[in-house]
C-alpha cells in the first residue's frame, strides 16, 4: 500500500474579494485564504486510499502534504494535517514569481529526499489562476507516469486506477506506481478537519507536536534551478460575458424557446 504525497495550495477566499472591471482591479475586503478546492479533493482522495479496507488503528500508508507553491506561511499545511494528513513539510524560501516549472524541480527534489513515494496527488487546476501544469511537470521531472483530470482514483497492488473525465464521457485508466495523478475540483465531498487535531496542530502540541517540518528550498536545489519560466507582463480581465436573453410566456412556451435556442447553438 502506497505512501502518498499531496500537493496543496491556497486561494483567496472568493467571498472576501470584489472585482471591479472598470477600475481593472481586484479589491480584497477580507484577506483570508482557503485550501485550493481541487487540492482539497486530492487530499480527500489520498485519505480515502489510505483508509481503504483498513481499520483506523493499523494505517497502511502515510499521507504527506507539501505546498504546491512557495507560501508565506504554513497555514494550509496545518489545515491539511488537521484534516488527516499524517505530516506536512513547509518549504521556506523566497523566489520571485515561482511558477509550476520551478516548483516541479523543487518538489522532485523533495520527493527524492523523502526517499521516493508511491503516489503523488494534486488538484487538476487552481481556482484563481487556472494552473494545471504542476502535476504533469512533476511527473516529467520524476520520470513517472501521469493521469490528469481524474474523477475517481484508487491505488492497490502497485497499480493506480483512475477514471478520467473526457469530452464525451468517462474513461478508465491504469498506470504502474509510482505515478502522479491530478484530481478535478468538486468530484469528492472533502471531509471537515477533526476538531482536536485542528487545535493541536495550530498549537503544536500533543500528537501534533512533530507533524509539521520545515525544509529550506536553498538546501534542495541549486540556485540556477530556481529560475521561473513564466514572465509576468501585466494583467487583464477577461471580457464581460454577453448578457443572456429573457424569455417569457407559459412554461411550455419558454421551454420551447430555450430548446430552440440551444439547438441553434449546437448547429452553429
Amino acid at each position: 500500500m502506497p505512501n502518498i504525497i499531496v500537493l496543496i495550495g491556497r486561494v483567496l477566499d472568493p467571498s472576501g474579494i470584489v472585482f471591479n472591471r472598470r477600475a481593472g482591479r481586484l479589491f480584497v475586503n477580507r484577506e483570508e485564504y482557503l485550501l485550493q478546492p481541487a487540492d482539497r479533493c486530492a487530499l480527500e482522495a489520498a485519505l480515502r486510499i489510505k483508509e481503504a479496507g483498513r481499520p483506523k488503528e493499523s494505517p497502511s500508508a502515510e499521507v504527506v502534504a507539501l505546498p504546491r507553491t512557495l507560501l508565506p506561511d504554513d497555514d494550509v499545511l496545518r489545515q491539511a494535517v488537521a484534516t488527516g494528513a499524517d505530516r506536512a513539510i513547509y518549504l521556506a524560501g523566497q523566489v520571485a514569481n515561482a511558477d509550476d516549472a520551478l516548483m516541479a524541480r523543487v518538489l522532485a527534489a523533495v520527493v527524492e529526499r523523502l526517499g521516493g513515494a508511491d503516489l503523488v496527488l494534486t488538484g487538476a487546476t487552481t481556482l484563481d489562476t487556472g494552473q494545471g501544469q504542476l502535476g504533469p511537470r512533476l511527473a516529467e521531472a520524476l520520470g513517472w507516469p501521469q493521469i490528469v483530470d481524474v474523477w475517481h482514483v484508487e491505488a492497490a497492488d502497485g497499480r493506480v486506477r483512475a477514471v478520467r473525465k473526457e469530452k464525451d464521457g468517462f474513461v478508465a485508466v491504469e498506470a504502474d506506481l509510482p505515478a502522479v495523478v491530478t484530481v478535478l475540483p468538486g468530484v469528492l465531498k472533502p471531509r471537515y478537519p477533526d476538531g482536536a487535531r485542528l487545535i493541536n496542530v495550530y498549537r503544536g502540541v500533543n500528537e501534533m507536536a512533530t507533524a509539521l517540518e520545515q525544509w529550506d528550498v536553498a538546501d534542495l536545489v541549486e540556485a540556477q534551478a530556481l529560475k521561473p519560466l513564466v514572465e509576468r507582463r501585466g494583467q487583464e480581465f477577461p471580457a464581460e460575458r454577453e448578457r443572456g436573453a429573457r424569455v417569457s410566456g407559459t412554461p411550455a412556451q419558454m421551454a420551447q424557446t430555450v430548446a430552440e435556442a440551444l439547438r441553434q447553438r449546437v448547429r452553429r
Partner: protein
Amino acid sequence: MDFTFSPEHVALRRMIREFAETEVAPIAAEIDREHKVPHDVLHKLGQIGLLGVCFPQEYGGMGAGEAGYCILMEELGRVCTSTATNVGAHIGIGAMAIHLDGSEEQKRKYLVPLARGEKMAAFGLTESNAGSDAANIRTRAVREGDSWILDGGKVYITNGGYAHVITVMAVTDPALGARGGVTAFIVETDWPGFKVAREEDKMGIRGTSTAELVFEELRVPHENVLGKVGEGFVAFMRSLDMGRLTLGAAGLGGAQAALEWSVRWAKTRKQFGTELANKQSVQWMIANLATEIEALRSLVYRVAWMVDAHQPFTQLAAMCKMYGSEVGSRAIDVALQIHGGLGYTRDFPIERAFRDARIAEIFEGTNEIQRIVIASNIFRDYGVRIRP
C-alpha cells in the same frame, strides 16, 4: 493589548463557518417548518468534535476553550438559531454542569460521551413554580440507602425530549432552602420513573425539543449526586453563567446575519429610481446596527477571554446574555423593516429569524433577571445588598 484571535481560533471559525453554511443553513427552514430536531446535523457536529468544543481533550473534548465555544455559537446562530439552541443546551448547561462539578468517575462516565456527541445532554432547573425564581424548586429527592428517590417534574426543558443525560435539581432538605437544601443529580433518561410528559409547540426555535418532564419514584444512585449534597444551587448558577455568555455569542451571529441580509437587499432593491443603499434612512439603520454588533462582539469575546483566563465574569456574562439577545432582536427587527413585505413572507429567512430571536430575551434567565444580576453585582461593589 491584543484583540486578535489566535491562529487556532481563526482556523476553527473557518471550519465551523463552512460546516454551518454547508450542513446547517440548507436545513434551517425545513426544521422550523416541520418542527423537528436536526439529529443528523448534531451527529455530524459530534463526529468532528464540535459538541465538546470547550471541554478538555482528556475528556473527549476539543480543548478550544470558552472562546472556541463562543465562535461555535456565533457561527451557528448566524445560520440557524434552532441548531445553536440544541447545541447550547447540550454543551453550555447540560454537559457544562458535569464538567464544572463532576467527579473524575462522573466525567469519565458521562462527560466523555457527551463531549464526543455520542450522547446528548439537557439541564433541568425550571419548574412550573420555579424558573427565574430558581430557589422555589418543588422536585423532591429523598435518600433511601445508596439511592435517592426523585419525585416531581420540570417544564420547558430544552433538549428534554431526546437527551440521554439530564442534570436535575431537586430539594434534599426543604428546611434549608436554596442554599444548603438543593442538590444536583445526573439522571439517565432511560431509567424507570423518568417520563417525557409533553413537547411544547413554540413560536420560534421550532427545530428544538422543549419538553415537560415527570419524575415518579425515579431512583438515582448516590454516586450520581453532582457536586456535594445541598450545594446544587451554587453549582447550577455557575453553569448558567457559562451558558449566558454563549447566548450572547449566538445573538451576535443572528444579528450579523440580519446585517448581511439587509446590506445585500439594500444593494438590490430599487425604489424611486435608486437602490435602498442610497437612502439615508436605510444607511442610518445599517450604521446603527453595525455599531451595536461591533460593541456586542467586543463584549462577548472579551468575556470569553476572561473565562479562559480564570477571571470572575458573572456580571459580564449577564450583560452578554441581556445585550446579545436585545441586539439580536433589534437587528432582525431592522432587517424586517428594510426588507418590507418580502421579509414578512415565509419565502425569506427573516420571518423565521424574527420568531427565533425573541426567545433569547426569555430563556436561561429572562433579561429582567439578568438586570437583577448586573445591578446586584454593581451595588455589592458599593456595599449595598439588594434583593429581587
